[in-house]
């Protein structure tokens, strides 16, 4: 790392009241760990690198895909199939070679958190699933690290600063104070299932970068004990005051041993054993005689009418929100469930298997997106 601060590069922020050379030096000495190099992670890293944060750690096991590009604007078409962290690392060197970047192209586990969190001042949660979010939350609480949380859902986004040290020595609330336990699998849609307006993670990630810079420099008031909610359609902002929740302590691992023993993927309902998934080709070869049930909501596109009539399928649309009350009409039927990306259909298959254990019940892997990928629709 270049120890002399380039005045010209940072001139526009150096002249800010309350920032100055002291603020720039704090950034230069800071170490920030960003977990997730997708829709949120890209703008976070771009702004932190541009601002002159001295060291950035970046973890993401994913490779760039075409469906990332409408929102993950660091990547270009030529980057498809490259590890995201490698592309970000290369492009950020061109933006500001003063910044030192460490990358991990593997999925983070408890061991990664315990080994690397102590080396960082601020953790930024830029992940896209509950298993990672609860893992990061619990590790930060256990190891006493502040973290900047951000998440998106369709047109809505939210940001908060969790577990920040307060003047009285306590810590600000954390994610388990809001939601002591993760939602059931399939209850909340991710971006692949529910969609996301491309610019929204840019807005939310930029807000997270702002909070990280405030945490490091001490400027302003962070979103500690506050949840900032934003709706892109109305441009309305709703800030919620947060309080600690006594229930959260029941579920928080209180030691490293307990933390290591917690199965975050199981806790967050990542595909349970026993539910049968079939891929698109298996389905077309062997299971067209099963009732095909589209459990997406009526507004989700594309609809499957044309496909089903061309294949001569017996099929129905039965949105997941009403499935529980309509399970009796599927009882003892052999069924293949389909949704947008194959997550909610797992949940539907789980529900039906409980109600009619002897039937042949499947979830179509990859969902409608998988059908489109294989050019079946």
């Amino acid at each position, binding site marked *: 790392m270049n120890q002399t601060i380039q005045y010209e590069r940072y001139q526009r922020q150096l002249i800010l009241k309350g920032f100055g050379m002291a603020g720039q030096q704090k950034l230069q000495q800071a170490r920030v760990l960003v977990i997730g190099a997708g829709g949120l992670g890209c703008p976070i890293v771009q702004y932190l690198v541009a601002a002159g944060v001295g060291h950035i750690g970046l973890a993401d096991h994913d490779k760039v895909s075409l469906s990332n590009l409408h929102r993950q604007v660091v990547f270009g078409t030529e980057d498809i199939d490259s590890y995201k962290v490698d592309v970000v690392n290369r492009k950020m060197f061109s933006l500001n070679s003063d910044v030192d970047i460490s990358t991990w192209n593997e999925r983070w586990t408890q061991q990664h958190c315990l080994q690397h969190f102590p080396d960082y001042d601020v953790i930024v949660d830029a*992940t*896209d699933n*509950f298993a990672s979010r609860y893992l990061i939350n619990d590790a930060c609480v256990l190891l006493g690290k502040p973290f900047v949380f951000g998440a998106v*859902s*369709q047109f809505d986004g939210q940001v908060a600063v969790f577990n920040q040290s307060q003047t009285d020595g306590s810590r600000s609330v954390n994610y388990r104070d*809001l939601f002591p*336990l*993760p939602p059931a699998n399939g209850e909340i849609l991710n971006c692949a299932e529910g969609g996301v307006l491309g610019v929204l993670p840019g807005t939310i990630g930029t807000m997270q970068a702002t909070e990280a810079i405030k945490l490091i420099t001490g400027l302003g008031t962070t979103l500690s004990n506050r949840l900032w909610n934003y709706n892109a359609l109305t441009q309305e902002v709703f800030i*919620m005051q947060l309080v600690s929740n006594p229930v959260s302590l029941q579920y928080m691992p209180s030691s490293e041993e307990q933390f290591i023993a917690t199965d975050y993927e199981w806790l967050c309902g990542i595909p349970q054993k026993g539910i049968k998934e079939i891929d698109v080709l298996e389905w077309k070869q062997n299971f067209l005689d099963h009732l095909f049930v589209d459990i997406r909501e009526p507004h989700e596109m594309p609809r499957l009418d044309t496909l089903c009539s061309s294949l001569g399928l017996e099929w129905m649309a039965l949105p997941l*929100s009403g499935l529980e009350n309509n399970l009796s009409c599927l009882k003892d039927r052999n069924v293949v469930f389909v949704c947008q990306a194959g997550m909610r259909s797992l949940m539907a298959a789980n529900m039906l298997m409980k109600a009619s254990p002897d039937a042949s019940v499947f979830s179509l892997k990859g969902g409608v997106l998988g059908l489109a990928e294989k050019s079946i629709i």
Partner: protein
Amino acid sequence: MIEVMFFGQFKDATGVSSIMVEEVANTDMLIQMMKKRYPALESSTYMIAVNNAMVTENTIIRHGSKVAFMPPFSGG
């Protein structure tokens, strides 16, 4: 009247971003009323805020209050 606001996917589940309801004494009663009106909320995970302040237990709702129903978001 009380304004009930829905965030994230709850807007899909209820079909509205907010509704006005007659006076309800407390958050437990309001939750029951909303679950009856919108069965999709029955098995959902949510947190509640009354007048922009998160609540963790049954809370009195005064005339003219705004109550928010917030699901967790996972996307990134």
